[in-house]
């Protein structure tokens, strides 16, 4: 019984949770969302550039994209965040007078997200049927316009589920930014929970943090499944029998 009481006290101390929840919602949640969403948006833009470089007919941009992707995907997130966030800090301070490591955290997350999203976009674009490019070119579009107007938009649509997945990763990985020594007002969910846990010697604030993460990630996971299913099965198709023959030049 003692052990069970101890367990409840350590992990489900409602009072400790209640104390941390306000700052978790007012400080941690907005910061986590800013980190994840801004690096998600910037990462998609950079990823799209990488994808376009990756399918280029010119080998030089192709190789640059390949090397970038291999490196940034191959490194542990914590290593990139520390190298960028702490390593670039002094340079940023000297050149632009910025002392805030928060943007560097976004930058590091963006660089990694771009590597993954670039691969997602590339595979999506390459999965578009070759007939689409051929038909566009037959109409008189240049290679570039055909890709931009017809092929790439279709490729992007196809990978929406994978992109939402990437956003889930970013929400979780944004917690690693705690390494950068941020101001109290810049703490994200994990750091808020961790500080409270350290002060009270109790795990409950971290359990609260975990629940808050799940409140975001589980609905997103189901959104992914929903989009995926919708794209696979489509809305109920409405195919009608062919109408009567067309009437071009009738009576000619």
């Amino acid at each position, binding site marked *: 019984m003692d052990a069970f009481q101890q367990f409840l006290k350590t992990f489900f101390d409602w009072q400790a949770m209640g104390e941390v929840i306000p700052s978790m919602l007012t400080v941690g949640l907005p910061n986590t969302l800013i980190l994840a969403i801004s690096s998600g948006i910037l990462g998609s833009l950079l990823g799209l550039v990488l994808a376009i470089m990756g399918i280029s007919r010119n080998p030089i941009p192709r190789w640059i994209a390949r090397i970038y992707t291999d490196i940034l995907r191959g490194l542990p997130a914590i290593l990139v965040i520390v190298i960028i966030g702490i390593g670039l800090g002094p340079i940023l301070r000297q050149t632009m007078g910025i002392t805030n490591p928060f943007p560097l955290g976004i930058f590091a997350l963006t660089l990694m997200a771009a590597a993954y999203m670039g691969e997602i976009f590339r595979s999506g674009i390459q999965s578009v049927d070759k007939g689409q490019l051929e038909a*566009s070119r037959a109409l008189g579009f240049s290679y570039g*316009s055909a890709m931009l107007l017809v092929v790439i938009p279709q490729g992007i649509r196809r990978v929406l589920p994978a992109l939402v997945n990437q956003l889930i990763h970013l929400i979780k990985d944004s917690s690693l930014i705690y390494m950068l020594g941020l101001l109290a007002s810049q703490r994200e969910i994990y750091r808020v929970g961790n500080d409270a846990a350290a002060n009270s010697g109790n795990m409950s604030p971290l359990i609260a943090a975990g629940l808050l993460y799940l409140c975001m990630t589980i609905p997103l996971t189901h959104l992914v499944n929903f989009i995926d299913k919708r794209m696979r099965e489509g809305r109920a198709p409405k195919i009608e029998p062919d109408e009567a023959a*067309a009437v*071009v030049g009738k009576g000619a």
Partner: protein
Amino acid sequence: MSDFNSGSLTASNIHLAFGNNKVLRGIDLHVPQGTTASVIGPSGSGKSTLLRVMNRLIEPDQGDIQLDGRSVLQDNPDELRRRIGMVFQQFNLFPHKTVVDNVSLALHKIKKLPKDQARAKAMEQLELVGLAHKADARPGNLSGGQQQRVAIARALAMEPEVMFFDEATSALDPELVKGVLALMTDLAKGGMTMVVVTHEMGFSRNVSDTVTFMDAGVVVETGSPDQLFSEPKTERLKGFLSDVL
């Protein structure tokens, strides 16, 4: 009387190889203005490739292509392709755009028509193929026959001088073939210059002005439909006809 501003098309001595695979070996094809040439032959004979060489989706290794008596090999290929409409076996409509946007996209982006004019012109073309009421549907919600008619409207909207049909009815269910063939027949009668790669021997025989039989990258026989279908000269054509008829 001609409904179209069509032109003549001549391909001479076209050679094309993919590595060691000689796909086209000295093809000659002449299509006078306002006539329909059908190209028949077994799979892999190079018919579809010939169409793609004639609008320079694939550049020939050797030979010349003339539109209205002038060689087009030095022209910008994008500009050449604006003068030649092409219809594909798999329709290749843009699935992410509505039917009317499929037709108006090139009018707006290439011919630089303002959006409303491009749309109006696209609606006119859809009217002609009998699908104006589907303007705001997605291609995926149309039957194969309807999709192919939209693809024809998309090509016609650019006011091409020549139309290419690459097995335009091969992917269609049998009951949908008729509508598309009727549309193609109307175009031919309206004076469009057409090159039709087809397995539809009825169309080839009844609608086209000339028939060209290709096999293994060469033209084996060419002439009027009566000549080829009633009095085939070569064993290869006789064999082919007995297989398909």
